[in-house]
């Protein structure tokens, strides 16, 4: 029996790993029933050899699937081993992993094995069992199956912390090309429904503390990048729309890992576009934490993010007329925009300069990346940029620094 479950776990974890979300934060479920577990800021309990966080037990209930999406390992036409867990097996694995402090909770997804509702019902059953029979207060992320009915989605939100539907492709055209069985409207409709229901629940919670929790960690989505020819402009505008219009908590970008010889897709052996993925996440951070507007990051003239420098530095070099910024007087929001100064450093500088004028030694000790920031700051009349042009500053920063990305990482892949 133990060999069989080991084999199932290896198949169903392997098939789930291309879903990149591993977040276990954003919920605030307390352990006030003397049960098991709680949620908080999220903890990464391990990191795989590819450097990614392992926070949740991320598995498929089954990798049997009636759909044939070209980018997916579990597609119907792929000749691979198929397996499926029983509801009880997933429950036991979750509880036993959780009790040993291996994980923060469960991320359960599934291939679609009959129809959307039938599949989704099984996922909900796992969550319900965990919450009711085991008094489990850890994190549960359920995948919403495209096309599932509102009743079932509603029930899922009562047990889970987070729900997600993957938009999969940045454009409808790419989706039609690679996932002929899926329609974008099947993904957007449940998102819309959840968005409205979550807002209603939050309002209700303000009035009645006892109102049930309803997807307290909100919704997220994911798109595959690098499998199709969309620009970063298209990707980031879509992401921005999800944040602004769908109240998405997170949009994930999954660099396409070639898994098939389908001629609609990059061939096996094509490097994963890891730098591009990383730049997209940096841009995403600028949208969410640095108060950037999407059109400041990409526009018609610059539809692709630079790969050799980060998007904040790119923006600064395009907008040199806004610099230098006086470290001792500049507005907090402007401080945050200085390349080499992050949210935390900006806060510290803002607080510390009330005591005395800060000089460059102070800044170095506080822990900003002075090497980069010095071209954009004036510090008590010192100002290092002088008359340098954007290209020269970029070169100086690149040659002085030691980029994280060396030869072992490929640049963005070229298509067509």
């Amino acid at each position, binding site marked *: 029996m*133990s060999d069989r479950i080991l084999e199932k776990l290896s198949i169903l974890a392997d098939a789930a790993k291309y879903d990149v979300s591993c977040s276990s934060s954003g919920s605030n479920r307390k352990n006030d029933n003397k*049960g098991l577990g709680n949620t908080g800021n999220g903890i990464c309990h*391990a990191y795989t050899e590819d450097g990614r966080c392992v926070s949740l037990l991320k598995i498929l209930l089954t990798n049997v699937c009636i759909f044939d999406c070209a980018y997916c390992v579990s597609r119907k036409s792929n000749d691979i081993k198929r397996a499926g867990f029983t509801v009880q097996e997933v429950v036991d*694995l979750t509880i036993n992993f959780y009790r040993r402090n291996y994980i923060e909770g469960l991320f359960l997804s599934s291939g679609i094995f009959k129809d959307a509702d039938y599949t989704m019902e099984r996922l909900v059953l796992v969550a319900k069992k965990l919450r009711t029979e085991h008094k489990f207060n850890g994190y549960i992320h359920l995948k919403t199956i495209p096309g599932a009915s509102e009743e079932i989605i509603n029930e899922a939100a009562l047990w889970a912390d987070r729900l997600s539907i993957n938009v999969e492709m940045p454009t409808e055209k790419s989706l039609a090309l690679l996932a002929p069985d899926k329609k974008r409207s099947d993904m957007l409709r449940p998102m819309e429904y959840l968005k409205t229901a979550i807002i209603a629940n939050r309002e209700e919670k303000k009035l009645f503390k006892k109102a049930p929790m309803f997807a307290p960690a909100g919704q997220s989505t994911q798109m595959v990048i690098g499998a199709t020819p969309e620009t970063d402009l298209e990707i980031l505008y879509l992401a921005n729309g999800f944040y602004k219009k769908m109240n998405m908590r997170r949009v994930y970008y999954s660099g396409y890992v070639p898994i098939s010889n389908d001629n609609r897709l990059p061939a096996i052996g094509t*490097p*994963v576009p890891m730098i591009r993925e990383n730049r997209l996440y940096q841009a995403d951070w600028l949208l969410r934490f640095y108060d950037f507007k999407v059109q400041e990051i990409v526009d018609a003239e610059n539809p692709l993010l630079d790969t050799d420098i980060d998007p904040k530095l790119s923006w600064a070099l395009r907008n040199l007329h806004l610099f230098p910024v006086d470290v001792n007087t500049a507005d907090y929001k402007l401080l945050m925009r200085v390349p080499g100064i992050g949210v935390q450093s900006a806060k*510290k500088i803002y607080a510390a300069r009330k005591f005395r004028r800060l000089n460059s030694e102070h800044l170095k000790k*506080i822990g900003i990346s002075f090497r980069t920031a010095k071209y954009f700051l004036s510090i008590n009349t010192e100002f290092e940029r002088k008359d340098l042009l954007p290209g020269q500053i970029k070169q100086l920063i690149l040659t002085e620094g030691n980029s994280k990305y060396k030869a072992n990482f490929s640049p963005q892949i070229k298509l067509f």
Partner: protein
Amino acid sequence: MDIVTYDGSMEGLLSAVFEVYEYKIPDPVICVRSAANGSLFGQFHEVHSNTEKTNRVYKKLSERLSKTSMLQVYSTFLSGLPGMENILLRYIQYVLASKQSVEYDYSHPDVLFVQQTSKKVHREKHRMEAFIRFQVTQDQLYYAIIQPDFNVLPLINNHFRKRYADQRWLIYDSHRKYGLYYDLETVTEIEMNFDIDVKHTKSVATLNDTNEELYQKLWQQYFSSVNIAARKNMKLHIQHMPKRYWRFLTEKQVQFNEEF
């Protein structure tokens, strides 16, 4: 220079701070009694922990500092870094001597030290919350052995008590020779000399529950299955999971045994 010795506890340190004021010791060097080997020069001043003195310093400080900064002071103490006593003394003197709050004065070296040291300690606390791996004994005790860089047991107590409210657990710091034990009601600090050769944790494994090995195997299997080989990045892996923690990580035991 006066050597001021204390018993190594936070209470003792605050009592020592009190006595520095009380006896107007001009140039004190505070250190733990056991570590103070006779200095040829200077005076010795022995401080005994005194609840009243401790409380007075504590109360005064909490009037001047936010909860966050109070925790930073405690975390800096728990770092056990050499010389932290005197930095904390100077920090406290600076706080008490200033009319306005100085806790965010990050261009002051002592304030910055306390902020940065507490951040290091906090990082280690967080690592323990992440990297502790319980094993289950036949009588359903969940136990884990740790060797954190800093003395973080007092800081992780709350987290584990709240999270694992329905299971008995024991976390043992084998460097500092003490642990926390939760009996389903309260957490108690227990001192024991549990002489464990961490390279041979297998010897303890004979006490384990019959299912324990299965779940360890399942976890190892899971850990290797979620890896995407095409994205291999060992530098990042090691940056997030430094090698010194590997010996206590169930998922790393497979490789560990092969290496040694």
